[in-house]
């Protein structure tokens, strides 16, 4: 499979994943492009990975972690500057008009980034093996981590 074919096949899935994680269309698009540029650069010096999808999700996961860290830092700075909630609209909420969705997203931002990545990768239908490869964790740990993450997330969403 060529680079172009992989781009064509994976572009939508990667964008969707990044949008769900960041909640920002611009950030999702930028990160999607960055992912494929990184993939192209990787292919210049290496052979095609055995599982290109998992390779892409690994890059996406790392980019996501950095992006969410930046978003959280920015949010914290805003909170420090303007402690009253009336002045602030959460970055992620700016693009979400639906109130219920905003509440859901708020519940989803509570768990650690790794748990969120786990949940989204699982939601994308990735197998334990691919999730483990993407997040660079042991395959045997995926089930335990995922069941705990789902339990916590479900409680957050219900409350």
């Amino acid at each position, binding site marked *: 499979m060529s680079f*172009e074919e992989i*781009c*064509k096949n994976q*572009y*939508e899935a990667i*964008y*969707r994943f990044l*949008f*769900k994680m960041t*909640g920002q*269309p611009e950030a*999702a*698009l930028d990160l999607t*492009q960055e992912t*494929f*540029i990184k993939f*192209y650069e990787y292919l210049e010096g290496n052979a095609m990975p055995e599982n290109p999808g998992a390779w892409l999700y690994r890059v996406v996961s790392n980019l996501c972690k950095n992006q969410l860290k930046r978003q959280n830092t920015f949010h914290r700075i805003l909170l420090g500057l303007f402690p009253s909630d009336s002045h602030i609209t959460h970055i992620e909420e700016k693009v979400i008009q639906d109130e219920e*969705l905003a509440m*859901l*997203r708020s519940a*989803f931002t509570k768990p650690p980034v790794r748990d969120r990545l786990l*949940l*989204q990768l*699982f*939601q994308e239908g990735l*197998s*334990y093996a691919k999730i483990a490869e993407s997040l660079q964790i042991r395959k045997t740990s995926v*089930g*335990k981590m*995922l*069941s705990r993450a*789902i*339990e916590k*997330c*479900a409680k957050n*969403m*219900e409350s």
Partner: protein
Amino acid sequence: MKCPGKEMIFNYVAGELSSEANQILEAHFSQCAACRKILSETEQQTSLVQQKLKKFAPSIIPERPDLQAKINLKKSKLKIGANAKQESFIRFPASRRLVLAGVMGIILIFCMVRMNLRHKIDEGAIYQMMMQYEDELGTDPKTDWLEKRIIISIIDEKENTIEFIQSTKENEEISREKFKIENGKFLN
């Protein structure tokens, strides 16, 4: 069979177990109410989270940008950046930078020393010396200034000397005396 843990039940829900393991678990569920309850809760929670997460999906997916063009642009930028870096390195290698820094340091020290020398004889000291000289000459500032005046000039900072030239107001030289300066005073 011993009751499976939550993790095993979740793995069953996630479809990550072998068909053999599935059969064993299903047989256990049919006999164990407690495990059936856990199974039901796990299924509900998983389904709830998956349904909710689906709502985060974007309503519109932007068109796939021309990635190849972006890659080419990035590569050309990298190339320009690398060339510029290489050129600047050739033109200005570390050894030259070190020599230049040394030369600039010497110039700076020289300037500071020169400035220090200049400030050794400041205006206040010159004025004091002028007063001292006038005292020694015994001139009366109230009357004599109409007929004569004193021109002061620092001749040489290296020699650290001061020369007083006394002249009439028509610029006719009356006397000229040169003194060595020490600690802001001239020595007779």
